[in-house]
């Protein structure tokens, strides 16, 4: 298994290099001029030239890339043009709210999607199956921010069941933390749960038609064990694949959902960085997002190895 993980890590390395290259090139390919942003709204051309020299943008591209890679490897992602704070510091501060949303949202998606998908597969061609499939198709198509706008009024504004804005740190109390992220996490989770329910149903229906399931039933193994222990494990690969894809989707959706709920997370940081054309911060966010998605893909690959030993 360790050798399998090592191989997957080696495969990920070229992708990581591409992510580093893309994040570096952002300063050159993004519209606008970072030096003008740094120089301020009333800067003269000389001021802009001074700011450009300060950013090192006058150096040749290869030299700048070498310097950038050295800084990244050394853990230095630079300083935000807008806040003057370290990029690492900003990302580290924004990580807990988004990690909380991701973790709770993914848990909700897996529980909802897994439960309803399994129910639909086991009760195939009944009203339960048709209801789950219909609702799953509906919620797959509804963006998280629309769900947010629909839920905020009844649950946060009319009744104070959940706060409408803000994030409570877990260190200040688990109850308040959970209350502050339940609604945004649910908004992120619902489309993902719908997708997972569809995949779970499809994969499980196929697995339940397999010979080994008939054999297990013939051997007198209980239905719960047949479905939960045998069929679900065999149906796991496509389900895990879809679950892994949700990490990137969650990160993208967090950008909007965090705005709606005013949560100071990774998505809000990305929004602020882009609106301020804060290139070092954008580079850091792209790099870290890329690494998170790479790691989630690695986790999916490792799970394949567990579910199907032939893939190791």
């Amino acid at each position, binding site marked *: 298994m360790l050798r399998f993980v090592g191989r997957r890590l080696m495969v990920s390395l070229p992708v990581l290099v591409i992510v580093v290259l893309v994040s570096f090139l952002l300063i050159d390919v993004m519209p606008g001029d970072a030096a003008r942003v740094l120089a301020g709204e009333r800067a003269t051309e000389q001021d802009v030239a001074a700011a450009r020299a300060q950013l090192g943008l006058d150096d040749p591209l290869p030299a700048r890339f070498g310097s950038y890679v050295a800084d990244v490897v050394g853990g230095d992602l630079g300083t935000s043009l*807008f806040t003057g704070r370290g990029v690492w510091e900003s990302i580290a501060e924004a990580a807990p709210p988004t990690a909380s949303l991701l973790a709770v949202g993914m848990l909700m998606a897996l529980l909802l999607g897994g439960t309803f998908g399994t129910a639909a597969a086991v009760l195939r061609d009944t009203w339960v199956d048709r209801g789950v499939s219909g609702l799953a198709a509906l919620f797959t198509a509804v963006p998280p921010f629309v769900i947010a706008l629909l839920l905020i009024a009844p649950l946060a504004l009319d009744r104070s069941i959940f706060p409408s804005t803000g994030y409570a740190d877990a260190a200040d109390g688990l109850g308040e933390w959970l209350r502050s992220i339940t609604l945004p996490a649910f908004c992120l989770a619902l489309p993902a749960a719908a997708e997972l329910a569809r995949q779970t149903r499809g994969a499980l229906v196929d697995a339940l038609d397999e010979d080994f399931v008939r054999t297990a039933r013939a051997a007198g193994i209980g239905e719960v064990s047949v479905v939960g222990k045998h069929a679900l494990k065999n149906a796991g690969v496509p389900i895990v694949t879809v679950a892994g894809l949700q990490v990137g989707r969650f990160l993208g959706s967090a950008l909007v959902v965090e705005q709606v709920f005013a949560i100071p997370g990774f998505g809000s940081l990305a929004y602020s960085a882009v609106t301020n054309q804060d290139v070092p911060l954008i580079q850091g966010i792209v790099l870290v997002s890329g690494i998170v998605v790479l790691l989630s893909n690695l986790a999916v690959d490792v799970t394949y190895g567990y579910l199907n030993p032939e893939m190791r």
Partner: protein
Amino acid sequence: MDARVRRVVLVVAVAALIAAGCGGGTDGGSGGRGSHDGEAAYDTSATLRLGANNNPPQFDPASGVTTGVDYTYYPPLYDRLVQLDGDLQPQPMVATDWETSSDGLTWTFHLRDDVTFHDDTPVDAEVVAASMNHARSQRGALAASYGENIADIDAVDPTTLTITLRSPDELLPVRLAFEVELSSIVNPRSLGSPELASSSDGSGPYRLAQVRQDRAVYEKVPGYWDEEVDQRAPARIELIGIADDQARANALRTGAIDGMAVYGEIPDLDRLADGENLIRYDFDRTNRHWVLEMNRDHPELADPRVRQAISLAIDRQLISDTVLWGSCTPSVQPFGAETVGYDSSLDAGDYYDPERARELLADAGADDLHLDFLQLGGTAFQQVTTALQGMLEDVGISTSVDVVEPQVGVATFKEGDYDLTALLPGGAPDPQMSLEAWYLGGASLGPIEPATQRAFDQASQASLGSDERDQGFRAVAQELAVTPLNATICMQTSVFVFSPEVDGVMEQSMPYMQVGYDLARLAVTAS
């Protein structure tokens, strides 16, 4: 009005209504608005939480890049020689009074002797000079451009400071009050320190207790020298960045914040600000205005007839009534109604004449004109740009549009690749400063009509407060209305909503210029 323009504006208005519908509740109702005057007992142990649409910037004044943002965030931490009152007039702060030499080049400021930094270091003329000299030496920073007309800053004795200018400028006290990047007095021990980006070392009524991604937390420093401020100021102020207008309104409605600035249309604003639970404040003496900037470096727009045609193609009333939720007063001059140089007769005229616009374009040989439009992101900019596009198309000018984020709009336009951009510049305390920033320099690109430049020079050389100055800027406004450098569209009211406990709202200076706060003027009344 032309049917084609009507269609365009109707589409924009319908889009706005749809967007509004998606944004939350839409119930109407009459909104309360007004001031919170009268004697009150202040809760100096309170925490005042306010919503802004941007996250905190960096906090080293000398490195500040956006006056509109910096003027809210720095003043609670750093004193200046001079401050602005609610009428945008310069008032004593660390300087008790000041005078200028007969040639107008040397200004002498007399300083208080009881001001100290938070570490008890005295604020004397020497440290003020050191702080301002450091700020104006930051090449490439806003402070340096603000200090370009300053030749020397010298401490004569601990309470006397002289500032020598390269050319006379009667507005120096106003500039020192407004241009906080240059004039914030920083403790010499911290000048140039990178730590200052997220901390403070000043003599203001507050110190910076915490900076997070979305908020700056200010903590009151006991014994501030200005007793009036000290006796009113709440113990803490949290300025919280909430980018989305509806989310900010939701935070206010649920009590998560005590006040908010309104940047765009909020569908249920009247229901939100019902006059009892929350109060709406309209600052309609503002100099903030929507303007269509025209790049006169491009040959087509160098022709004054083309610019005049563009100005005549704009139906200002329609834009104000539909896409700007009635919060913008149509105007062809860049001065507010109560500002020096405002000429009411100009706005009484009809400056919407598409037929005349077509004739002017034909005269200029530009009847098949195509222009590149830079649109800033955000609903209001998108709707104003779309409306302008339709109006220009109606007189035969086609446009293509690229979009950038508002914060970098000016910088991108100044690169010179675009012909047009619709901006909502922050006003300045004085019309001369507004013109310098948005019409005769700053974001404005290209040559200036000699007659306009002559009128401006004459007006700016007249004494402050004189009739000659007022008449001079009226002449500038008349020149700009007839031969526009850029097309002024309307004067934008700054709208805020506060809980009834928040006091001092109308004593602020900032809302008359931009959508921001004078944090040190706000207080919380004891319930």
